[in-house]
């Protein structure tokens, strides 16, 4: 799931090398925190959060298979 999130985020940004993702795994839920270059923050969010929401939707599809809840946060 982390690879998927990484793939999606890196495909969107201009500076893929500055993308880092940390993972906190609980029993039922996983929290991912994405860090990107400052200039890329807007690109990952998108207008009205559309891009980050699309990313969330796709990652959740992967999470369903593992029976876990996923939340994705973007650190500015």
């Amino acid at each position, binding site marked *: 799931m982390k690879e*998927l999130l990484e793939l999606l985020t890196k495909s969107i940004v201009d500076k893929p090398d500055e993308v880092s993702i940390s993972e906190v795994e609980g029993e039922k839920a996983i929290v991912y925190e994405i860090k990107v270059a400052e200039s890329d923050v807007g690109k990952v969010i998108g*207008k*009205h959060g*559309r*891009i980050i929401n*699309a*990313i969330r939707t*796709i990652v959740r*599809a992967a999470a369903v298979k593992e029976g876990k809840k996923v939340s994705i946060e973007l650190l500015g």
Partner: protein
Amino acid sequence: MNEVIQEGRNKEEALKAALEKLGVTREDVDVEVLETHREGLFGFIGSRPVKIRVFLKQHDDSNFNRIEEDFEDEIGHVQGNPHVAYPDNVTPEDVVKDFVTKVFSCLEVKCDIEVIEGENNIYVDIGGDDSGVIIGKFGQTLDALQFLTNVIMTKKYGNKKKILVNVGDYRQRRETSVKKLARSVARKVLKSKKPEALAPMPPQDRRIVHLTLSTYDHIATTSEGTGKNRKVIISYKD
């Protein structure tokens, strides 16, 4: 005259009569079956003819504007700003295929991905037994994937063609059911003359509703609301 409602013993007969009335050929019209034929007792008591609605294929400009608006809505007013050039001998289709393939390998789903270039669109067809996981509730996962693919291609590569992602025959099935819904609500509106709102749906589905009903006299369609809550209102016009 844009449409006729015609009865007949079977669909072919009704269609033939309707085409004569309209003075056009089969290619110019769409046909909707309103009532299907029913065999009566002994072939006559309680039997019912076929009833069809035959209407000209046509689109007025106002509908096209709305459809355009919905299309723009979908890619989120993304401005093409190409700053990544394609490597040598790599086509946009290759980039799309590579991206979608990677997404599926991350999902650990085996599937066949075929990318076909059309005149205005790039079609991504996904097949395979487990490919259903990517559809999601009301196709929202599939729409998210399509949206992201479009954003990446438009922003990074300045791609101008619209990318359409499809799993098996999902889109076609969806189209059929949305058309059916649109027509049945339109009939209700024609009777009651009161506007009806459809449930919120993604841009593609709204587009289907606008297109399907663009041939109806006395029916107007508009979109209302923003984002996920955008929905089509079907109303009566004189």
